[in-house]
């Protein structure tokens, strides 16, 4: 039976009903219709479902929705400003062509945001390490890494 769940999603308090066995990913997609967060493997391997849970990147398919009650969740939908201005990481992916089909992109962007919150001056190796849990099956990772390095520069320059 569905039970009430309270979360703050993208800064907005939400209270809604969720099955006890739902993952956070299913709760976001099926109950809140936030479908920007993707379901790839549903086993934690691909990283397409990455969101920030209390500020930290996690694979939302491995989180029981009810275990996250009273937490802060940030999804890809929550990154752009009120004015529609993209987050510097999103903008860098656009500018530097850090995507092809786009399915892995929300997860990669969330992992990058998680990294840059902790370390706005990462080395290329640190970027690779931070996205080790995100799979992209279209392309190489070069442009993704380029995009994240560029976003880091933007953020350090105070444009973030």
């Amino acid at each position, binding site marked *: 039976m569905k039970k009430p769940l309270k979360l703050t999603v993208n800064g907005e308090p939400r209270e809604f009903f969720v099955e*006890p066995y739902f993952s956070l990913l299913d709760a976001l997609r099926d109950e809140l219709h936030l479908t920007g967060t993707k379901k790839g493997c549903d086993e*934690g391997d691909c990283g397409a479902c990455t969101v920030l849970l209390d500020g930290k990147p996690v694979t939302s398919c*491995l*989180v*029981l929705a009810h275990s996250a009650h009273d937490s802060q969740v940030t999804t890809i939908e929550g990154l752009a400003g009120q004015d529609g201005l993209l987050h510097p990481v999103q903008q860098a992916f656009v500018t530097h062509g850090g995507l092809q089909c786009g399915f892995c992109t929300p997860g990669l962007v969330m992992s990058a945001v998680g990294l840059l919150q902790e370390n706005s001056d990462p080395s290329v190796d640190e970027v690779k390490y931070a996205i*080790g*849990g995100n*799979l992209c099956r279209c392309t190489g990772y070069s442009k993704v890494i380029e995009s994240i390095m560029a976003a880091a520069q933007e953020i350090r320059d105070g444009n973030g």
Partner: protein
Amino acid sequence: MARFEYLEARTLRQAISLLQRHGDEARIVAGSTDFLVRWRQGVWQPKYVVNIGRIASLRRISYSRRLGLRLGALVSVRDLETHPQIQSNYSALSAAAASFAGVQVRNLATVGGNVCNASPAGDTLPALLAFDAQCKIAGPEGDRWVALSEFFTGPGRTVLQTGEILTELRLPPPLPNTGSLYIKHSPRGAMDIATLGVASVISLEGSGRVCRNLRIGLGAVAPTPIRASSAESLLWGREVTPELITSAAQAAKADAKPIGDVRGSAEHRQDMVAVLTQRTLDRALDMARGNPMAFEMQRQFAIQAAF
């Protein structure tokens, strides 16, 4: 996928009483990273899930030179990786954490879950064994202590009884002149399960020549994580020479009783035990002689992938 009811314990006492009430129909979850995968595969089908992940008292992490390291069962693998005192005093453990899955899983996965899941390939286990971890277990009858070396009874099997919860791991303080490293060998360089893993912890006498203490933990080469006891006893109390290290590496190979599977044949695993024992010992020795390894280096060493 059988549906289950979600129950959440706020205190240890509450968790124990929920587990007692529901017996074998209940399963504990902490980070749920193993649980949700096994549940979706239909392997685990509990009627009740008892989430202990929000019991604040199990999240603590503390280090002192006198008492050593105390890890609440809910400490995340990411915390093991990034904690400065763990990086400097228990480097094999931070290296093991750095070799583990990706950041997103490490943020969720708990050290207690890795121990209780009792996979022979669990990445934190060889290092915890090599640091002589002691397990605190809470249950209906009160607390009891079990050495980690006695905790595993088979693949996925432990000494835990129904209603019992692992609450804390204690690692004694490192002796002076100690160095340690973990190396995981796996097919891929990220997000893979260990083909095998080796953790070596060595302490030297003040002179820097004689081995005062050595523990070697081996992962994925037996039904449970094991110590390489015959390799260890070769070095204890002896002057450490390159020849002796090589003999110890060969002895570790004989301590291993691996099987073959998709990640490697039994023979490959056995050969790699010698290689990784040698490598971890060489590096640990260098650290014990006063050349600490920066965490970035530990991390680079931690995964030695085939591809």
